[in-house]
């Protein structure tokens, strides 16, 4: 019966103190949240830690949930901010950016055929700045520009601009590859 309830109803009930509602809400979104964290960080271990941080803080953040926002939008905003904080507080920033670099090494099951493609992905994500990467990740998660803008707290125009920048950079990377 819970599954019939909308995310927003669940979130509201949870904000009012309904533990079961909270539990099923998080259960419903955990995998997506984790995937999102992975894409933000580029490293499995970072993604696990980030997800844990978010889970730990989420009950309290529920208080800030407002019915007018979609739960996913709100959740992604929490995630983006948490990821942002993590990056900021890293003792050395380089460690954080290495995520998309050593992630590939940690990956065990990559087969030979997709290897080159994954190289490309790693390189591409690595070269985008944080803003562009965060924005791109949201768009890749099938969000509209408007939704992404809401998550990131920027204007829709900025999102569109960032996406076009990201595309430009991706194209440049591709061209460079084709040339070599």
């Amino acid at each position, binding site marked *: 019966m819970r599954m019939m309830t909308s995310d927003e109803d669940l979130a509201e009930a949870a904000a009012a103190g309904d*533990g079961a509602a*909270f539990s099923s809400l998080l259960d419903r979104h955990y995998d997506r949240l984790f995937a999102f964290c992975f894409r933000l960080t580029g490293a*499995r271990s970072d993604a696990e830690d980030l997800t844990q941080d978010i889970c730990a803080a989420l009950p309290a953040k529920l208080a800030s949930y407002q019915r007018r926002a979609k739960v996913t939008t709100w959740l992604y905003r929490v995630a983006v901010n948490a990821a942002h904080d993590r990056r900021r507080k890293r003792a050395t*920033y380089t460690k954080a950016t290495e995520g998309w670099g050593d992630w590939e090494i940690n990956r065990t099951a990559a087969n030979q055929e997709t290897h080159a493609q994954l190289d490309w992905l790693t390189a591409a994500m690595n070269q985008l700045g944080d803003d562009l990467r965060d924005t791109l990740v949201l768009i890749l998660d099938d969000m509209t520009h408007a939704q992404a803008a809401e998550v990131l707290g920027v204007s829709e125009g900025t999102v569109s601009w960032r996406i076009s920048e990201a595309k430009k950079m991706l194209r440049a990377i591709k061209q460079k590859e084709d040339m070599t």
Partner: protein
Amino acid sequence: MTDDLDDLKSLMDAATPRPDAARRAENLALAQRNFDALQGSRDEPRPTVVTGPKGLWTGVKTMMNAMTSKGGLTATTALVACGFLVLTPQGQDLLRPPSPPQITMTEFDGALGGTVVEEAPIAELRATDDAPLASAREETALKTPEADLAFENFSDAPEVIASGAAPEPSMLPRAEMAEQTSPVLDAEVAESAASSTSRMRVTQQIAQTESLLAAPALVAPGDDRFVAPVTDTEAFANADSNPLQITAETPVSTFSIDVDTAAYAVVRSSLMRGQLPPSEAVRIEELINYFPYDYAAPDANEAPFRPTVSTFQTPWNADTQLVHIALQGQMPAIADRPPLNLVFLVDTSGSMDDPAKLPLLKQSFRLMLDQLRPEDQVAIVEYAGSAGQVLAPTAASERTTILRAIQSLGAGGSTNGQGGLEQAYSVAEGMAENGEVSRIILATDGDFNVGLSDPNALTDFIADKRDTGTYLSVLGFGRGNLDDATMQALAQNGNGTAAYIDTLSEAQKVLVDQLSGALFPIAGDVKVQVEFNPAQIAEYRLIGYETRALRREDFNNDAVDAGELGAGHSVTAIYEVTPVGSPAQLSDPLRYAPSTAAVGSDELGFLKLRYKAPGETVSQLIEVPIMQDSGLESEAGFAAAIAGFGQLLRNPQYLGDWGYDDAIALATANRGEDAFGYRTEAVQLMRLAQSLSQ
């Protein structure tokens, strides 16, 4: 184009791993635990609105019955305390460091809105101490809507809540612990703040401790332990205070001039917040040089600045003297100034999203724009995660274009300071033409965390660029994560000045009143060397300039960089000297050293200055003897008062029982004309510091 993204999407989908099942379960359990903790009851879900207040009472009763009276009392007190701290505006204030614009946490809910302060019923809350949990819960329940409202407005409120709730729900042993072991907890906070591996965890820990510590605060409010800003990440550049030197051993003292003013503004912003500044934030020479002085200016055909040396009795020690060295730069005719190329390099990282940062910066630049001439050029480069040129070089006459570009700056993302600097230097080089002055004005909260993470590498980069003739000035904004050390390093290595802008009136002083000094250097690499006469002076001590010390041999080495003097700038340096035979001498004369007494000159010492004319590589020398007591005049007296004030804030070991009263009296007596009220403000700051230090 879309193909690119589609490719990327399918790749991404393929690359994204499944969550680890064990971690998933763990994290879900953790979330649930925290959720339950927040509700105040582990076993039963808190009734929803549908169940109504009756359910509330039932839950409370069950809980009360399950508790022993002692445990119940402790738990309820703790709960009331937490509720007070977290749910009422006053509680929020207790948890929050005193002034709003210093918190560096990311805003979870966007803008920092106006402070909603309601007359909260402290008395009522107190009353609930007696009628334990039941009414407390009621109170809490009633407060909920208001609390929601508060979260909207206080950007960091969810943080606080998170922290309050994050601890394991067993309030009882913790509450006891808080009473017994608060120093330990303090230490823990400091430690965890220092290591700060993960912000979330640290904040949790800090706020856990704070809320626990704050529980007794209900009984004894006003203990300022609770308002100490433990979460800031400020870093200040400073070194140990200059030690006393014995003239017979080290007769020569060498340093570079410093015309920065940042330390004064930082001290002021601390005092205005009701806190004494951290002693490492106090650079005495910057306090002294913050003020304009009416020293004798050079004549037209002289060197670009004129040194004035005076000697008078030390205000805080009748048996020593102060040697007051003043350099006054000439003020070239403003009309003749060369055209300016300005590159505004603006930090638009997420941390700049604060009323005291980006908005103040925009207003400051607007003020400055009015001072520019039509032939001047302005370009704007912003840097956050990636650097970008916001405004191509534009003539200052196109005011609206520039204003619009300034207005369009928005904060978000991390700080790639190096990328921005590289771009700014390349823009500046593109703008440079013969006879023009190019300067980059870097506006930041100092939090460089992307690109060259090693400060040395960053300053090397700048030192390299400085040879292109482009100057670099640094404007600091905001408190909380102000990286004063990096700012100092940048400005010192980039042939520029560092100023800290905390208010619009400070922006007025730096960017309007003293703009020509800030933008037009008249002498570069100005070094000061004083040789004291051991026959006259037994001991000496340079007050301030700790971060500007030079080696004795560097004075004549033109390759060694030093500070620049801007148009109309004045620089003051003060030595405290102990005459031979004075009862104030701290060191005993050596038994076996040859006696130096009565050898020739009655000069106290000899002052040598080196400087380079702008754009030149060979330095010129100015020499002035330091003569006996010349009497105290007003300008030097005020500088001495500020020197004393700085030492009171930093390290009063040489001041004896000379205190704030004396500093205030001395400063007031020598206030002079003080057209802009800077000195009056300084006296007010002294009074504030006096109250705060008691």
